[in-house]
């Protein structure tokens, strides 16, 4: 998987030129940028709506999706999108049992998630000689995306972000105070369903690059960091996308020059930013207050 053994010079410009002299790196950078922007935006709403567990479960479902697609011999992209969006609809359609049912819902989600992973494992076991691919499906690889698939990624991302732009304001309202929003005539339930489908699409996109297990990092970490840094919704939404893109670029660049996989670098950079953001918030509460009032 590591392409030869390129050695980075300390001249950033030459390094970037060298990176982009490889067509697969250009593809990876394009895919990474698309995925990071989408995951940053959708993840921001996911963190706001406290749906981390649902997002994580959707990420897990992408694994049997890809494994199943490989088993029946179609492009893994179909498997990712098909399974993730279907699972999002299942989570949305699940009947609400009232406020008391919260803990039981998580038991259902957990069971579905573990069962989905088990199905993925079964597909892999049934498909002989696929055991090497399993690591790439779970943890991603630089070569995970082809040129044609970048186009699919782009189309889906534009559609998803367009939808998000249309429903953004009411969704924000419904996320912050669902009861008041419902009283004002905002269709809270329909918005929740649309959002889950968007989340499914974002997860399906991101898993093609980072693998099923590490998607969650792109969804939750930039968003959580941005929400720690500023309380203003518009600013932190943009910040979340920016952090996602930066982290992905650095991850791709460093992964190219090292023998370790991209997932490790992306998660580590994102986590360092998150810890730094929390340290800033805890260390400089006064300064932060003056920022948010400015």
């Amino acid at each position, binding site marked *: 998987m590591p392409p030869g053994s390129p050695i980075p010079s300390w001249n950033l410009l030459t390094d970037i030129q060298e990176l982009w002299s490889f067509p697969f790196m250009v593809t990876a950078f394009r895919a990474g940028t698309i995925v990071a922007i989408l995951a940053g935006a959708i993840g921001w709403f996911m963190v706001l709506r406290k749906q981390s567990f649902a997002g994580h479960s959707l990420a897990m479902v992408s694994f049997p999706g890809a494994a199943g697609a490989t088993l029946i011999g179609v492009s893994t992209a179909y498997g990712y999108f098909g399974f993730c969006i279907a699972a999002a609809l299942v989570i949305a359609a699940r009947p609400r049992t009232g406020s008391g049912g919260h803990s039981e819902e998580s038991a*259902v989600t957990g069971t579905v998630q573990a*069962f989905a992973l088990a199905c993925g494992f079964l597909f892999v*076991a049934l498909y002989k000689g696929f055991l090497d691919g*399993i690591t790439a499906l779970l943890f991603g690889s630089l070569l995970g995306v082809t040129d044609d698939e970048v186009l699919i990624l782009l189309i889906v991302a534009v559609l998803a972000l367009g939808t998000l732009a249309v429903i953004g304001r009411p969704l924000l309202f419904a996320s912050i105070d669902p009861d008041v929003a419902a009283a004002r005539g905002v269709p809270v339930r329909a918005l929740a369903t649309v959002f889950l489908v968007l989340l499914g699409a974002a997860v399906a996109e991101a898993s093609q690059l980072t693998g099923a297990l590490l998607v969650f990092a792109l969804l939750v970490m930039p968003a959580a960091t941005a929400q720690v840094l500023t309380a203003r919704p518009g600013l932190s939404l943009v910040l979340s996308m920016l952090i996602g893109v930066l982290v992905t670029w650095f991850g791709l660049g460093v992964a190219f020059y090292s023998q370790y996989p991209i997932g*490790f670098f992306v998660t*580590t950079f994102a986590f360092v930013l998150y810890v730094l953001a929390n340290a800033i918030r805890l260390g400089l509460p006064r300064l932060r207050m003056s920022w948010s009032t400015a």
Partner: protein
Amino acid sequence: MISLLTTDFMRHALLAGTAIAAACGLVGYFLVLRAQVFTGDALSHVAFTGALAALAFGIDPRIGLFVGTVAVALLLGALGRRGRADDVVIGNIFAWVLGLGVFFLTVYTTSRSTANGTAGVTILFGSIFGISAGQAVTAAWIAAAICVILLFIARPLLFSSIDEAVAAAHGVPVRLLGYVFLVLVGACSAEATQAAGALLLLGLLAAPAGTAHRLTTRPYLGLALAAGLAVVEMWVGLVLSALFSRIPPSFAILAVAAGVYALVLIADTLRKSTNGATKPAPDHTPTHPERALI
């Protein structure tokens, strides 16, 4: 059938599996009751990283499993209020921990000449039929210890899970119990990783417990039911996968557990909808039925 049960690998699997399933059922019951399923999920991912880190440094993976899960369990307890961590914090930590796991996987497979290329897959998805006699006995003892400790603290833990404020006012050491419970969850995850694998053990924690919660509101009966269901589901799964050798054991166990849960959910929903049409009186659903019994 009888000859199958007397083979060595089946006897070891049954011994370890029974003890592990009982521990998972008991721990899972409290996880669902305390709405901490996401914590169990996070700890199961930590198990993966712990085991691979130990392999990368060349020590027994079980040491890495236990050290990793128990340490992160304590960390999660320290970060959350009253021994319960926030979803976003959990999500950030375990996304990064998974990234670290990938790092150790690469270190292990590239640096050790004796490396087993499928070690990562084994840890993620389990290999209960590969367990040795010594490992099975150790696993059984540790699982038995988890069960005994949990039953010992069951009464105060039930009280503090159902109503933390009242329990604290009665002098129950709520915070300490929260920590002890998290450590038990960590130990249980480490145990179950050997049977079902790091990715699938969540099903073993959530499915029998969710089923028990649906079947009865009486806490001690529920505990017994969760443990009993988990053990029986483990047995059925093991036998099924031994009979049909193409089905991996962890898939069989999870499929049985998820299937039983799904059947109970469907039956219960049907019963409620037919009952609800004739008599709306909520005769068996007081808000906190457990409280009356303690």
